[in-house]
């Protein structure tokens, strides 16, 4: 594991892999590695697990957030050789290997995490060999930076599809920028019909589907780079449709309404981030996975007068939620769908559905 600033973290490879270059981030989730690895928001990222023992309960067909692992690479302190859990259908290492995801083991992941924390998220390479080679160094230097990188276009679905019963009372159109499966599951559980559309779907096409509400999903990459989506949302956020956004969807909404996004030094990734609901004063423990954030504070979002800040992160004061001052439009930076992570914020789904009903 080599970082772009030259820091090198030796480890071992339980399974041979091809060298890979990507942004290196860490997540502090204690459990839920399978959900993390299949979360499309991690596209283009090498994920360092701060939890030291990964793979204990193996893998199973239910705990996936997309059809395959999406991470560019996995770095762990120790991989469990043999899993144990009543739902387990196999070992994590085999599953990652099958998906050709590089795994590096035996790394001092705490040292690596502390490095990223103090120096910021940066590009890195995982490659095999005793020492970092010049080739690897050169290729790492030439690899693209996350800043300005549109990855949603890569993470989205190719074609529109439907989920949920056809006769459901409520119909939601969901922009898939790299959507986690649990979001759709929760909508369906709440009695909705969901039409999942590709990121590039135009506003007119969305309106043709006659949704009761519009959902903007999570996804990877720099939100500011997804210019077409921002433009489309600007059209759609005119008050005619209730809109609910999560994570990248939240950032895109912020940009569409005139706000700005900034790259966080090392992002928020984990399942323990405290967020204050400014309306009630209550603290939610949330699941998070983002490297960018909408700029703002209690006073509001600069440039987006229509937006009111509803949630703030208690650790660093960054914006965690916004809502439109007039229209039934709101979004959160964290993941109310959890999976992995705590369920404290799942109420946002009901909040959205209520907005639909009062529409």
């Amino acid at each position, binding site marked *: 594991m080599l970082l772009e600033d030259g820091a090198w*973290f*030796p480890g071992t490879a339980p399974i041979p892999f091809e060298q890979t270059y990507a942004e290196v981030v*860490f997540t*502090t*989730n*204690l*459990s*839920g590695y*399978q*959900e993390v690895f299949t979360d499309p928001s991690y596209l283009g990222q090498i994920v360092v697990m*701060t*939890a*030291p*023992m990964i793979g*204990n*309960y193996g893998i*199973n067909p*239910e*705990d996936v957030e997309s059809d395959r692992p999406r991470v560019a690479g996995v770095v762990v*302190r*120790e991989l*469990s*050789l*043999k*899993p*144990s*859990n*009543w*739902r387990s259908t196999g070992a994590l290492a085999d599953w990652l290997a099958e998906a050709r995801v590089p795994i590096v083991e035996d790394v*001092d*992941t*705490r*040292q690596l*995490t*502390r490095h990223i*924390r*103090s120096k910021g998220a940066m590009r890195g390479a995982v490659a095999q060999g005793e020492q970092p080679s010049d080739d690897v160094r050169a290729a790492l230097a030439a690899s693209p930076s996350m800043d300005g990188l549109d990855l949603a276009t890569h993470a989205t679905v190719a074609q529109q599809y439907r989920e949920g019963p056809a006769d459901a009372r409520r119909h939601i159109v969901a922009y898939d920028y790299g959507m986690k499966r649990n979001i759709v599951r929760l909508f369906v559980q709440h009695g909705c019909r969901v039409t999942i559309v590709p990121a590039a779907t135009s506003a007119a096409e969305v309106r043709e589907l006659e949704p009761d509400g519009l959902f903007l999903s999570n996804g990877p990459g720099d939100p500011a780079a997804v210019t077409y989506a921002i433009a489309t949302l600007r059209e759609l956020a005119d008050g005619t449709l209730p809109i609910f956004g999560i994570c990248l969807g939240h950032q895109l909404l912020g940009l569409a309404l005139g706000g700005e996004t900034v790259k966080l030094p090392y992002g928020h990734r*984990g*399942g*323990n*981030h*405290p967020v*204050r609901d400014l309306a009630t*004063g*209550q*603290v939610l*423990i949330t699941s998070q996975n983002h490297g960018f954030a909408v700029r703002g504070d209690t006073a509001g979002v600069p440039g987006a007068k229509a937006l009111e800040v509803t949630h703030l992160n*208690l*650790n660093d004061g960054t914006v965690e939620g916004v809502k439109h001052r007039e229209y039934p439009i709101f979004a959160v930076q964290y993941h109310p769908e*959890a*999976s*992995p*992570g*705590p*369920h404290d914020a799942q109420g946002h789904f009901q909040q959205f559905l209520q907005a639909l009903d009062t529409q």
Partner: protein
Amino acid sequence: MPKRTDLRRILLLGSGPIVIGQAAEFDYSGTQAVKALKEEGYAVVLVNSNPATIMTDPELADRTYIEPVTPEWVRRVIERERPDALLPTMGGQTALNVAMALARDGTLARHGVELIGANARAIQMAEDRAEFAAAMRRIGLATPVGRVAASVADALTIVTETGYPAILRPSFTLGGTGGGVAYNRAEFEELVERALDLSPVHTTLIERSVLGWKEFELEVMRDHRDNVVIVCSIENVDPMGVHTGDSITVAPAMTLTDREYQRMRDAAIAIIREIGVEAGGCNIQFAVNPADGEMLVIEMNPRVSRSSALASKATGFPIARIGTKLAVGYTLDELPNDITRTTPASFEPVLDYVVVKVPRFAFEKFPTADFRLTTQMKSVGEAMAIGRTFKEAFQKGLRALEAGRSGWTLGPTLADDRVTSDSPEDLRVALRTPTPERVFQIKRALLAGLPVEAIAEATGIDPWFLYQMEELIAAERWFAGARDIGPAELRRMKRLGFSDRQLGELRRTSEEAMRQRRWELGIHPVYKTVDTCAGEFPSSTPYLYSTYDAETESEPFGERGIIILGSGPNRIGQGVEFDYCCVRAGLAFRDLGYRTIMINSNPETVSTDFDISDKLYFEPLTFEDVIEIVRWERPKGVVVQLGGQTPLRLTKPLEAAGVPILGTPPDSIDIAEDRERFEALARRLGITQPANGTARSVEEAVRVAQRIGYPVLVRPSYVLGGRAMEIVYDDASLRGYFEKAARVAPEHPVLIDRFLEDAFEGDVDAISDGRRVVIAGVMQHIEDAGVHSGDSACVLPPYLIGDRQVEEMRRYTKAFAEALGVVGLINVQYAIKDGVVHVLEVNPRASRTVPFVSKATGVSLAKLAAAVMVGRTLDELGLPDDLPLRGVAVKEAVFPFTKLPGVDTILGPEMRSTGEVMGLADSFGMAFAKAQIAADGSLPLEGGILVTVNDSDKPTVVPIVRRFHEMGFRIVATEGTEKYLRARGVPAERVAKVHEGRPNAIDLIVSGDVQLLINTPLGKFTQADDYAIRRAALVHRVPYTTTMSAASAACDAIIALRSRTGSVRSLQEWHERTRTEKQPHEAKPPTASRAPVAKS
């Protein structure tokens, strides 16, 4: 909302003496609570009868009452102090029960005292099994099918629904007292009777057995704005059926998927809301069916607990401290995370390491006790270890136990691992019964080729843990067979947590050689921080653990640093009193401008609170672990004299490694421990010792014993707590001793002393700066010589020892301290027989009685010891030659007999008490009475007394029984005693002995016809009759005494209790009074109202 301003004075209840199930963890939580309240400007009134704790240090609370933690005595404190609120959640079940009693009887309402932290309704709902089960049903959660029985008949109906095995859980008892598993009707009836009896409300829950299910615990906190966080998840390696206190446990949970974990988390949040814990923490236990993930709620404790102490140490999130602040009105988001100091407390800690807790048992001291582990807790302490992987933490935890294993190693013999052979069949059978040794039996089973699946089936342990153990065995084989030991080999093994000693054994070389090789290769551990956030935020608190990884986060203190070695896991003979000394001294070093570095492995204690020292290393106290820290820190010196035998044992190797030892020179410690050198010293000083000798073989032992004359006291050298110490009366029993109790070999000599029958014992604690010696306290034991000093009640000042002998003890102690060049603390034990003072032993270190003496006199010995160790003189510290003392202080021992069925309650030279209490009063009788009440041995004021004593005690017992008779007690005695009493004019009724038919002595006890038992065993062998009588008294909670001196003291105490109501007074007031009245010399106790008990 910030803190409440309508409260000014808050009463805090401690948990009383250390007992199984309620130990040092409540000193930790109570101390945090006091500090947190003081920090917020509240006046804190504390009640705790346990003098060995830090929380009762008079410098902590504003008013410290060392009084019994019972409704009656706490009421007196309330009447006197008029607190605004009572915080009942920091002192275990004891505090909760007392608070509930005071709420129920109206005391709290009458005096306007508000319960904070948990209200009476929440406590009631959580503690009452039926109400709890109903609450769970309301929120859609399942509990094991169960109903509450109030009678045996009820119970028999219920068990037809649950089936066998059935689980019993008596209501409102601590540590699962009286609980158990019944496999058949006979066992069931017996257990139900005991459970009903032990439950203060005489009900017990009968549950469906979930034996073999996986067991988890969550630590939950909630504030009054309904913010909830989960501080920690804990997974038990041992499945349901073994009390969590007796289980090896791991944090965080290892084998739960996120989906399962979140379901448990959701349940926990729903539970704390439904029960209505409004501002504080609770612990919730779950069982999970390994086959299909079905989850049941087992129980909830609406207070801090052993697990919350463990969770605090495991995560760095101080639950008791935060819980206290929530109780006075703060919300989680208003409080800072004390470790990062930049992020708020309303978050959930994440771990980038694995924590393993291992229980420590004391069955070696209770050979007749049932060693099977059940739902009733039996362990007396625990060690915690932190590693980057389960394997590393597991091995560190096992060596941190200090139970003779250097990691996950086999015992030297099959019996040490409680198996009869290494055959797979025998092992499989053994594995079915949970015992302290099962984890080692698993190793034998894996080595014998038993597959993981078979072991999992027999033990109910999740295969994941067994796979981890399998990996350790694979690594051992690989290492043992490696051609050469290079850096790769050593690094891999060290990362798996193997100690140098284990590696040496695998390569058939010594620990030292292995370490030498490792050091040559430059392989050392690194130190990482416990920071609550897995490195996501910078942390400013140096709470460290070792691991073999790449980066170290500890900056050495160098010459400014002083390392204090703690006392490791609590055990009988080495408990919280040594932790008190370590903490007190650590704080003193800080005040003197040094940086304190604490090393300890005990998660229950105050010393392992990261707030107490400048740096905490949570590490095993083995030479290897300590020397690596010393090597890294390069401190000014290491303190070994405060933590009991654990650090003392490291003195020689540390000195040999060139490590500076602060205080008393190591050679003096050797003189005191080495029989021959010590004898020479005593002779040179002209101080009498009981005739004695050392033997290195059985034959030599017999020769020595014959030379000095029976009875003799035998014991192995270098022991604490009287381990394997016995009084033997003839050759045959001496030989028997070597067969069952102790090995003797040239490298394991035994010490043999003439046993002075019917002598008084005295204990002296003193402090020396190397120039001047000050006697801190002279104590007299209430029990006769032959009862271990830790098990004997003792009184300060002495009440039956003559002035001349007291003076001699003081002089001798000074002579020893001077001769040994003591710098710091010294304790000397004496026996006084026929007016002659004999020295029994000299301990140039902190003794068990240091906190007791400190609290009685108001002079903090451990604090002074720290100062003299860094060169201050006693003159500079302003310590006078005589420490004044007002009043009488009695220390009483507390025993684990109710927790350990099958154990006789007779006292002997082997220490068996787990804790102690203190009674402080103007008279001996009242001080003794308070101590008895605090020790849960309430004394009757009227009623019947059953007397059955052996012939040699009969003359002594007469005046005692006469006094009882004069007070109006009915005297009942067995035949011999009855005749003897009558002949001397004491009227007594006769009762049949157990074998003489019925009604007999036991019937009287069972039916409540007698309120006190005076019993001494007939001869040296415990007769079955006597044993049964004593057990009956224990089970039916009839106070009993097994020595004449204790019986006499009990009589004094009852007289005191009958003549006046006991008054309460805080330590601060006692000490103030002492200072103002300027007592010229140790006061004679006011109530030497009778002649000394005649000794036959």
